[in-house]
């Protein structure tokens, strides 16, 4: 039996896992991707807090009495825009960090102890 709750919950879980895995990488670029991915997950999570309703957008109409909770939507809307600001900032940080330090390791330098080193 398929239901939307389990589908959305599992999507959120997968997105969180992927986002965190990318955030744990050693280079700035995957970390930025991870942040964005986690952003999707968090927005969906917040959205889900308003419960899942189909076809009841919070647009007041005559004769309609049932609407989805508009508050999480308002929160998520601004969260999406702020999330963009954060991603943009992180991306710029990564670019500038690379230009200044000459590498894109998140610590600003490539640790020698890491096995594998800087070569593929």
């Amino acid at each position, binding site marked *: 039996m398929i*239901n*939307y709750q389990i*589908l*959305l*919950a*599992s*999507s*959120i*879980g*997968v*997105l*969180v*896992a*992927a986002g*965190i*895995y*990318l*955030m*744990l990488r050693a280079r700035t*670029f995957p970390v*930025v*991707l991870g942040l*964005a*991915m986690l952003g*999707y997950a968090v*927005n969906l*999570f917040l*959205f*889900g*807090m*308003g419960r*899942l309703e189909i*076809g009841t*957008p*919070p*647009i*007041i109409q005559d004769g309609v009495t049932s*609407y*989805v*909770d*508009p*508050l999480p*939507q*308002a929160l*998520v809307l601004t969260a*999406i*825009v*702020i*999330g*963009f*600001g954060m*991603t*943009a*900032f992180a*991306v*710029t940080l990564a*670019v500038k960090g690379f230009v200044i330090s000459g590498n894109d390791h998140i610590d600003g330098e490539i640790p020698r102890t*890491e096995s*594998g080193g*800087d070569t593929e």
Partner: protein
Amino acid sequence: MTMLIIVLLPFLAIFPVWMVGRRNRFISMLVAAATSASALVALATLAPAVMSGEVLTSSWPWIERLGLELAFRVDGLALLFGILILGIGTLVIVYAYFYLHDDDPIGSFYAMLMTFMGAMMGVVMSENVLLLVMFWELTSISSFLLIGYWKHLPAARQGARMALGITGGGGLALLAGMLLIGHIVGSYDLTTILASNELILGHDLYFVALVLVLLGAFTKSAQFPFHFWLPNAMSAPTPVSSYLHSATMVKAGVFLLARMHPALSGSSSWFVLVTGAGTITLCFAAYVALFKHDLKGLLAYSTISHLGLITACFGFSTKLATTAGVFHIMNHAIFKASLFMSAGIIDHETGTRDARVLSGLRHSMPITFGLATLATLAMAGFPLFSGFLSKEMFFEVAFLSMDNPLAGEIRGYEWLFPVLATFGGLCSMAYSFRLIGDVFFGEENPDLPKHPHDPPAGLWAPVAILVFFCVAIGVAPFLFQGFVFVVAQAVIGGPAPDYKIAIWHGLTPALGMTGVAVVGGALLYRNWRSIHSFHTRFAPISGKVIFEAFVEAAVASARRLTAWFDNGSMQRYIATTIGFATFVGFLGWYQLGWTPGTLDLTLAPPVALIPWGVLIAATALTIRFHRKRLAAVVMMSVVGLIVSLIFIFFSGPDLGLTQLSVEVVTILLILLSLYVLPQWTPRESTPRRRGRDAILSCAAGLGVGALAYGVMTRPQQTISDFYLEKSVPEGGGSNVVNVILVDFRGFDTMGEIAVLMVAAIGIVVMLQGRRPVRPNDVRPLIEERFPVMLTTTTRPMMALILVIAFYIFMRGHNLPGGGFIAGLVASVALIIQFLASGKTWTNKRLTVDFARMGALGVIIAVCTGLAAFLFEKPFLKGGLAHVHVPGIGEIHLASAMSFDLGVFMVVVGALLIIIKRLSEYHGGDDDEVESMKDRR
């Protein structure tokens, strides 16, 4: 009101004296002195009522939830301390003006002194015990600043740190103690607490509260074993030592004992702890003072010893003993302040404070000699001087305490009290002899650093005023008896004892003890050299060394701890943070269990598995190919699209539109960064590290997913009915999400657009300065810069999209849309031009200053909010009007629309600045690329 003024006056003077002090030292001094003098006058107006036995209180509410009130009281005790603080304070201000060097920043000195003075007045006048603790800590901080006034001296910095460490720590204990007392009594009002002696004594927490309060008092008053900070505080300028570290601040500790005496005394724990600490301190410090060569060091230990005496008095706790205690507080403040000032004069005029070097100054400094001798006799406790009277009373109560009913554990040893008291008096006598004998008598030392002579009147006049009181009290005690008894009543919490302060009481045991002290002290001074050589055989145990070792050990262990988890690896921080959060999350389930909710599940048709599958697959592919960065971005954009579909499907049309347009800009932005950043990520994590990360992220994902499922299957309690109901009648729009954004929660939205603008500014600033030397290696790979198809279609498209944006903006209040979405759509229209036609072409035609546009947007939003004030409504309260425009239909002219316009402009401005700056960052321009292409 007068009380508030008295406490506030010094604080109000802080800024003026500081500013003026930079230009004119004299006026700065005048302002400071006038402030404390006028506060003294204000206090004097309350004196008649207090002298007639009244307790004046007044209060203003402050933070009621915490039980914190701005409540003040003036009773006898507060009056005595107020007079000492403000009176001696005024003299010290004058003295410091002549004492400090022209190069010393006197403005900041007076500013700190005024802070201290206000804090001290706050301590003694607080009616609320939490307020008292607050001012108490402020005295510690201002004392720290004043000790470290000469910040170039290492000893000053070290001494300041130590004083703050000890007294500040004691202050924390005091806070805990006061909270406990407040818990026991149920009120933080002093009047209630002082009347609850039986309740407090009978409570289980009494002993803990007592110890905590005593820790505060003993650290502040430098009681053994917390005494060592005081001698080290002597690296402060002498006016500070005289004021803070003898006359007033160290008295805050004994003040606290006196203040809390009616509430906490009457038990044998009080008797044993307070009397014990006081007596030990009295004897130990008097003995150490005997061997100090530095005049200020000698006086510092003498101060500790006298504070011990006062503490012991409050410990004995009888009516007579507490009267002796408050009387000695007054006498000690007067003679010790004058002695410190005298030591300062000697230092100032001879260049040294070393008793081994100084000698025979009676000829060259006769005025100083006279004043210092009189003050020393008062300190030693000679008849006809103030110190004699209170010391006699102390000897008497020490003698009488031999049958104190509260002796408790120390019963059988009470005979020690008179013996130790006599020993302390004897040492005190001896160091007083030494102070005068070594410095002023004997042959004059011709090799002093400076040629000694009496100082200007500005330095000795304050001393003379204080010495006058030493003698006046000593000769005519009956003039002061009434005042002392009023003070004592406040400490006893009842009537004063039946006693007459007089010079002659007949042949009492106390007189005998004084006799022993005088003769013994003289003998001790005669044989000082042999006793000193005996004393120096023992290695000194310095509290300072122990304290420094303790501090160093604490710092070292903190450093080790920090190095252990703060090793500079971002990966470790993220892993630790997420790991901990996940752990805590699962801990909750481990304890309470996890169950799905009871809400009916929304069944999904099998076709729903397709977008779900796409999302999962795209996510998995992003991970799989994350080292190939371009591919990863493409995969991730699929995820973003599915997310916007989810929003639209589950009744969130606004969110879907927002997500979709943000997605476009985000992906573009990330692609732009790849212009500079490397194209691939090296494989550098070990399989073990990757395994660990996979486990961690899967655990977190499982947790969040299970949480989401748990919540989504449970019935909801929402506060949103309010918004749904009021949206149309009060917000004037049927799109509730938009009405929430621009009206109900407009203040939040204003914060959000400000954040977006700040991010844009941050990015602009970050991208200034150094640029990459050479464009990244991808560039030559691009053969066709601007495909003709893309270029020709996007140009007319732009106009269309902008019209759509306008439409979305206008309808946003009633249908999905609004400033955010319109802004995003418009931005996409413009950004596409950069993409399709290159930035040189676009910049030539698009000459809008987007930074200005964003800033203007914030201003419009704020002004809309402020406009509500014109209609006498709260900030951002919306107003509305519906206007029918022929040809377009009904449009709403709500103030929300102008706010939404601000949002729109910020979004467009911020997005375009960010994209433009980042696209320009890689250096070079399109023409250069064109020419490169031609060359090839």
